[in-house]
């Protein structure tokens, strides 16, 4: 019997994968550990496995300007997500049910606006915002985040509605419901899981943005990713605070990503694959 050999192979494979996972994660774990170290500890080599963990880095951040940036990030991400869902969900539903001509062109347009290099939007937005006085405002950021989030909503939700049978709302229409009632009373209540996943992905894309915020904000509307980078430039490389700031930015991301891990492929490819 070859079962013993097979079992050994299986064990070896598991060990290999665990080692690879640790190796792949070590850079990330290092940053996490750094955020709990004092500056002296950070420069200590070889690193001590048991060091006196400190929350001083986090405390220092929370009493600094960083808190405002963190809140800015939250506000901008939440509002742009809500707006994208509000505008995009009915469109996704209609595009799924309506075989209008030109939907191929709309497809390419939406995909292209997801794929376009951010600088393509940044230059015109920068020029226009100077006149509209939207530079360094949360409103300005929310608008530019719609460029990717609105397309994301349409691309996540349209295949979702393709899967809902049309007979659902048709039955409601026969019972005398209007189109609008069919959508709000039948379709929307069934959209929960799709909406949740889409909302989280929208939030993450807005939250993760660095480039737009770097160029379109200065101080007032600065978001957390830009604020962390500023620790590098002006405050003399405070590695502990940089690590703590980085950790605070990535925590919500890790939690949410875990929740929507099934939809990640789908969201990242704009619906090219139902992963």
């Amino acid at each position, binding site marked *: 019997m070859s079962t013993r050999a097979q079992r050994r192979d299986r064990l070896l494979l598991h060990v290999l994968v665990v080692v690879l996972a640790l190796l792949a994660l070590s850079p990330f774990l*290092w940053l996490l550990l750094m955020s709990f170290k004092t500056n002296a500890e950070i420069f200590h080599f070889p690193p001590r496995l048991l060091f006196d963990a400190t929350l001083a880095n986090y405390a220092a951040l929370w009493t600094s300007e960083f808190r405002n940036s963190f809140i800015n990030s939250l506000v901008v991400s939440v509002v742009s997500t809500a707006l994208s869902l509000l505008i995009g969900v009915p*469109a996704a539903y209609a595009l799924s049910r309506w075989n209008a001509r030109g939907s191929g062109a709309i497809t390419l347009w939406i995909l292209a606006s997801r794929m376009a290099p951010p600088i393509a939007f940044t230059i015109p937005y920068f020029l226009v915002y100077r006149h509209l006085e939207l530079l360094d405002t949360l409103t300005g950021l929310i608008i530019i985040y719609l460029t990717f989030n609105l397309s994301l909503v349409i691309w996540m939700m349209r295949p979702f509605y393709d899967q809902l049978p049309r007979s659902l709302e048709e039955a409601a*229409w026969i019972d005398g419901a209007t*189109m609008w009632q069919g959508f709000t009373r039948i379709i929307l209540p069934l959209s929960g899981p799709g909406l949740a996943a889409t909302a989280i992905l929208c939030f993450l894309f807005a939250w993760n943005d660095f480039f737009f915020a770097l160029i379109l904000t200065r101080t007032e509307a600065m978001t957390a990713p830009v604020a962390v980078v500023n620790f590098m430039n002006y405050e003399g490389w405070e590695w502990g605070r940089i*690590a703590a700031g980085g950790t605070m930015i990535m925590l919500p991301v890790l939690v949410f990503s875990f929740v929507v891990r099934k939809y990640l492929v789908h969201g990242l*490819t704009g619906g*090219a694959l139902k992963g």
Partner: protein
Amino acid sequence: MISERLAGTAAGFARQQHRFFAYCVAPSLAVLAVITLLPSLYLLATSFTQLSLTRPETLWDFSQPLESYRQLLADSRLHNSVWVQVKLSFWTVLLQLLIGLGLALLLNMKSRLLEALRTVFLIPMVLPPIVVAIIWKVIYTPDISPMHGIFRAIGWNVPALITDPNWALTSIIIADTWEWFPFTMLMVLAALQMIPQELLDAAKVDGASPWQVTRHVTLPFITGILLVAGLFRLIDSIKAFPLIFILTDGGPGNLTEVTNYYSYLQAFNFSYLGFSSAITVALLAASIVLSWVIVRAVGWGVRVD
């Protein structure tokens, strides 16, 4: 009520349906037109000027519309940036495909532990790009880097990689590969799960070794996915920004200055927005062409009901 609807108003209902769908789509199209189409046209218009914010009179000066594009052909720093971009894209896409494919094949087994580890491998990809950049800044900074610590301990004298001309681009490639190998891994895993089990069983019954099954059944089945994943990564690699901004700032010299980064420098460091717009129009055209290739490759618009 029902008979009324069915009898006289079938045509009316169809019209009502059309109107409702139009109302649903209109806001999105209007908003997208204002926030993506208009800016693209504005970008195109700017590319025909010599706009520089230090000289306000250049704002709507279209007297030499093709001057920026003439400079595109003459600017050797731009040509260098395209070459850097080609090297970066080639190596990151290649490495991500290979590592992603290898890991997906390793992980594609029924096992609680492996299924849990799949999620763990996704972490680099979901981290905010700026955090990835910070992580690698730490690793590439000799004073605090565990990697450099180990090198010193075993007596290797390794220079700071991101400031070393021989290593700067490689260090970016390593960091970018680390960030995005989960993407190809995830796509391949999704594809692997779609391989019909009968196909695999049939190959085994015929006495194929695991290696032969992989080579002759699995790989042909997932080439399509690999192509699409590669295309997505290729388009994304054109946008590479945070890693270069944080790690090397395009240097040393301009060894890691990709086109996107050069365009950023021209616009927001040197204030030549007109010239930068021309570069960006070229970049935008490239990504639209690649998106179109994806749409064709995936076969969107063809609905399978």
